[in-house]
């Protein structure tokens, strides 16, 4: 080998891509979002529809995973509150087609201002909801809302949807450097968006139930007004399942107008301090 060595400058580097990174991100990100959306709509629809067909017995067994009965507060006032709210729920239930799983109110000793529908027919009411309530009608509106979730089987649909979509996405993106998580977040975001639609439908049925019990829908917006005042609709609200309180108040008033419901005088929530007498 006696060829002389001639040092020279190499030209442009052929070993690396020279596309700007944002272009790549735009193309790939778009594709990724398209896959998630497709999975969400197609698989989610299948999963959700299947979940809605789940027989009551299966729902009951599903509910048994969450030991709701043990969550009932045992103080006399909370037991009294449960009995009173159960009375309202029982009246509301007569407005709906009968089902195997009765609606059961469970009052939880917890300052959270909230309520929740749990598979199996349970309606959790947190003490914080009762403490700040200005009327019985306000609480009844929330009970109606949770009954509506049970009636529409929203929680089952959402569970089925998320299960199917999560299973398929994790098998596609199984080892994609955190893509599975990103996909999961996308699904969660979408399910929250859909959650808001469920909430609107639940509000509608809740209004019907409220009117059926009291003959008017007075107090139906009170809870959301309270939320507005407490500024719970802060910056985190974009991520929430529930539509914004102000939006919901407008919507409730609109539906009430459409259906000819009037806003009558509300009745106070009995004090449960000294159980179980009513005022």
């Amino acid at each position, binding site marked *: 080998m006696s060829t002389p060595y001639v040092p020279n400058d190499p030209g442009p580097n052929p070993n690396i891509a020279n596309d700007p990174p944002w272009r*790549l991100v735009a193309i790939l990100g778009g594709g990724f979002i398209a896959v998630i959306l497709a999975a969400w709509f197609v698989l989610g629809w299948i999963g959700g529809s299947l979940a809605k067909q789940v027989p009551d017995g299966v729902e009951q067994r599903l509910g048994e995973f969450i030991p709701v009965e043990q969550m009932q507060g045992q103080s006399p006032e909370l037991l009294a509150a449960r009995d009173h709210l159960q009375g309202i729920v029982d009246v509301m239930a007569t407005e709906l087609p009968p089902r195997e799983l009765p609606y059961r109110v469970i009052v939880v000793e917890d300052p959270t201002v909230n309520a929740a529908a749990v598979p199996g027919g349970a309606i959790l009411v947190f003490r914080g909801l009762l403490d700040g309530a200005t009327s019985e009608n306000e609480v009844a509106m929330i009970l109606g809302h949770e009954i509506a979730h049970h009636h529409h089987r929203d929680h089952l649909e959402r569970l089925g949807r998320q299960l199917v979509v999560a299973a398929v996405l994790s098998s596609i993106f199984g080892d994609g450097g955190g893509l599975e998580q990103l996909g999961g977040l996308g699904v969660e975001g979408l399910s929250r968006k859909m959650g808001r639609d469920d909430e609107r439908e639940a509000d509608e049925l809740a209004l019907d139930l409220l009117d059926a019990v009291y003959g008017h829908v007075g107090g139906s917006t009170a809870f959301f007004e309270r939320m507005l005042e407490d500024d719970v609709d802060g910056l*985190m609200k974009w991520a929430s399942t529930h539509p914004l309180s102000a939006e919901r108040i407008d919507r409730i008033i609109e539906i009430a107008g459409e259906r000819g419901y009037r806003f009558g005088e509300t009745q106070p929530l009995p004090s449960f301090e000294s159980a179980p007498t009513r005022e």
Partner: protein
Amino acid sequence: MPAEIEFALRVGIPILLVVVGFFSGSIFEKRHYASIERREKELRPIPVTNVREFDTAREIVASRLVMGSVVISVDAFKSMVGGLQSFFGGRVSSYETLVDRARREAVLRMMDEATGAHVLVNLRIETSAVGDPGESASSIEAVAYATAVEYRK
């Protein structure tokens, strides 16, 4: 509302990581390329070749093994883009600069070790992923080794 805060954190933190990864990764890469190009230019007069014999007419007075190695990490942005590319297939261009930088850096470090050599022959470069097997690559290692040869002046 703790559930909302939790959700915001779960969305925000990965996005933040990718954004930080993009900026820090770009800065490091830019600096690294500037450094590689400057040093390559300085060292260009010394021939480095993968042939085993070079200028056989000259008398060899010393020869020794020289090595250079480097480990470079992927950043959160490259990792995310790489994940997407490995899903859709095709060129995983987000990792290409990483491998390119690692190999060139390894050769440069090897040459730093070869002070006094007139030529480096029998160059070999090896690249491997550092990280848990089966997981997506987190760092890559490049090793360059060659025989440094000194001729009689």
